């Protein structure tokens, strides 16, 4: 049992956290503790700084003092150089937390005569380590020795001994090395330091430079294998571990207003989901920025913090322009709720943008992030890279429950639905602004192309910029298509006239009907009258005929009587006809 435990503890490599932002995440804990690590890269890629920060963070965060042995810069230079990054080395040296030792070799001063070793270096380093109880050591750049000493055989043997000695001392060491033609380092140091190799790179593509870091090798540990962008700024080194954080972010059911009442109505009357990603795309001058400004203003009114990245306008220009449509962002900026980050996209490489975004977001801790516009990035970089960068930004923001609004400029030639950067699949709510050119006018239309998780309106609305901000109007959709602007007004008038005509028509028809009814009724009455007269005629005839019949009967009786007596017959006649 004990043996198994022992084996296990041996199996898991002890790590020494560097305290460098993001680096410990890539390496799952930092550098291998008690072992040397090779940090290589070309000139100016940040090797020295990596080493310095490793020591400074080590002593300030983890209470592990460190020795910095410099073969290039003097102590004074070093102190001055890193002061700009906020490291007060002098103070740390005074408190015996860091020891600097500048090793200087002047080739011209040195004559080599016979056998020697580098015991002097060992003693110096050992003395420095012991004097402050150092746990960390940086040798920067030990390859300079090759320029100062001629006997390479001795040098190589001594270096091998040095790294073994460092391991025995149990210090976590960083050895920096200049990058060689085909090898990681010019002098093949990777041969001696083989536990962990980190490569720093400073690449320029399309005139923008990006710093990248890669863990080439890490014995006995898992590590991220990608190239990670990193950043050197006034707070030091920061590496971005994000490639993709996976799709595990929490979601919120909270809804936040878009700042435009009519638009909220189109989105179930509530607006966007918190933490969702909104894309506003459209051609030039359709009002994308105005929508972003509305959103920002609404958020500030709720007391939320907004980080606004503007890549095309300066903050003051943006604020001036937005004032013209009645959105005053200035007070919010003064109150610190709204922060602008204005840079030209070409100012850095993509990774750098990502890094800057990360840093800015982490520093400002906003609820809302606006990027206006995102597709200016494409200028120098391929679409794929832009997409992967935006994906990382989206993932990062979502992971932090930050609502993001991006604007994207679509060129009028390409299909409107194809957002240039092809990030449509990353977007939760996509608002499309488009020009509607009709009757010599150019008007704006807006519709919700998609909105995940809500019943959005399918209507196209006319988008009007007024002195009081954006207004959305119902557009006229008729037989002749979508009408906007004056065409809409004309159409409305036209429609009103038509309506009136129709009304009159109906009235006329009704009157006609009435007349017909009257005619019908008159006819009926006439027929009735005619019938009546005929009826009475007929009845009279009938009576007359009946009389005749009766008279005939009487005559017959009389005749019968007359055959018996004439007088009787006369009497009867008198009797019947008074």
């Amino acid at each position, binding site marked *: 049992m004990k043996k198994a435990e022992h084996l296990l503890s041996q199996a898991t490599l002890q790590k020494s956290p560097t305290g460098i932002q993001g680096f410990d995440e890539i390496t799952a804990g930092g550098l291998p503790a008690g072992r040397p690590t090779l940090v290589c890269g070309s000139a100016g890629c940040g090797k020295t700084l990596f080493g310095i920060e490793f020591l400074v963070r080590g002593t300030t965060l983890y209470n592990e003092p460190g020795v910095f042995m410099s073969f290039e810069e003097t102590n004074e230079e070093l102190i001055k150089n890193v002061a700009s990054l906020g490291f007060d080395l002098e103070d740390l040296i005074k408190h015996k937390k860091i020891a600097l*030792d500048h*090793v*200087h*070799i002047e080739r011209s*001063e*040195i*004559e*080599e*005569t*016979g*056998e*020697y*070793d*580098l*015991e*002097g*270096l060992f*003693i*110096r380093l*050992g*003395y420095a380590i012991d004097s402050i109880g150092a746990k960390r050591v940086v040798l920067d750049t030990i390859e300079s*020795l090759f320029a*100062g*000493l001629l006997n390479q055989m001795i040098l190589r043997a001594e270096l091998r001994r040095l790294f073994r000695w460092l391991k025995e001392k149990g210090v976590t060491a960083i050895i920096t090395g200049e990058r060689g033609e085909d090898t990681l380092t010019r002098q093949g140091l990777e041969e001696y330091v083989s536990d962990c190799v980190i490569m720093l790179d400073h690449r320029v593509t399309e005139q923008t430079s990006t710093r990248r870091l890669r863990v080439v090798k890490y014995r006995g540990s898992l590590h991220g294998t990608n190239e990670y962008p990193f950043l050197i700024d006034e707070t030091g080194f920061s590496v971005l571990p994000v490639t993709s954080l996976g799709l595990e972010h929490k979601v919120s059911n909270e809804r936040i207003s878009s700042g435009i009442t009519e638009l909220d109505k189109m989105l179930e009357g509530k607006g966007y989901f918190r933490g969702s990603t909104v894309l506003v795309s459209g051609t030039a001058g359709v009002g994308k920025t105005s929508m972003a400004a509305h959103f920002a203003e609404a958020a500030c009114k709720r007391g939320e913090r907004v980080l606004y990245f503007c890549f095309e306008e300066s903050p003051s220009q943006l604020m001036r322009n937005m004032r013209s449509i009645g959105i005053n962002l200035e007070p919010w900026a003064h109150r610190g709720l709204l922060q602008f980050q204005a840079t030209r996209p070409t100012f850095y490489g993509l990774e750098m943008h990502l890094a800057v975004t990360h840093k800015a977001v982490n520093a400002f801790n906003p609820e809302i992030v606006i990027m206006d516009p995102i597709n200016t990035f494409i200028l120098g970089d391929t679409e794929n890279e832009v997409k992967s960068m935006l994906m990382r930004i989206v993932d990062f923001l979502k992971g932090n429950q930050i609502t993001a609004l991006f604007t994207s400029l679509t060129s009028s030639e390409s299909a409107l639905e194809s957002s240039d950067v092809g990030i449509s699949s990353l977007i939760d709510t996509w608002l499309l602004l488009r020009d509607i050119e009709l009757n010599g006018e150019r008007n704006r239309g807006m519709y919700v192309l998609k909105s995940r998780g809500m019943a959005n309106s399918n209507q196209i609305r006319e988008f009007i910029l007024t002195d009081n901000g954006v207004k959305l109007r119902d557009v006229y959709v008729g037989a002749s298509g979508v009408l906007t602007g004056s065409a809409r007004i004309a159409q409305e008038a036209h429609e009103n006239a038509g309506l009136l005509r129709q009304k009159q028509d109906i009235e006329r028809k009704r009157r006609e009907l009435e007349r017909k009814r009257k005619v019908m009724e008159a006819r009926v009455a006439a027929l009735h009258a005619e019938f009546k007269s005929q009826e009475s005629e007929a009845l009279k005839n009938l009576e007359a005929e009946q009389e005749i019949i009766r008279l005939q009967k009487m005559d017959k009786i009389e005749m019968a009587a007359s055959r018996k007596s004439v007088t009787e017959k006369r009497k009867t006649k008198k009797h019947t006809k008074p």
Partner: protein
Amino acid sequence: MKPMNEKFEVKTKRKKPPKAEDNKWVLRLYVAGQSPKALTAFANLKKICEEQLEGKYSIEVIDLLINPQLGNEDQILALPTLVRKLPVPVRKIIGDLSDTERVLVGLDLFHVD
């Protein structure tokens, strides 16, 4: 004048900075303990000095194992290292000084005969 024996005397305390006396050679030999290389170097140095600079030189031996902090001043890396403090300019010769010719070149004592 120190006796020329196998071992050398180690200065544990620094002397006052050497004064620029007329034609006085001030040499300093850095070593790490009584290693074979150190002993060879000391013997070789002694021999060369006796031959070339008789009576006008002083040798200070500094053992960095005893006084490690003394190595910084002369930027000592390799051991043994001989430093010519005077006359200026400072010259450094590393190794066991077995190549007499190169030592003479290094000390600027080489005369073309």
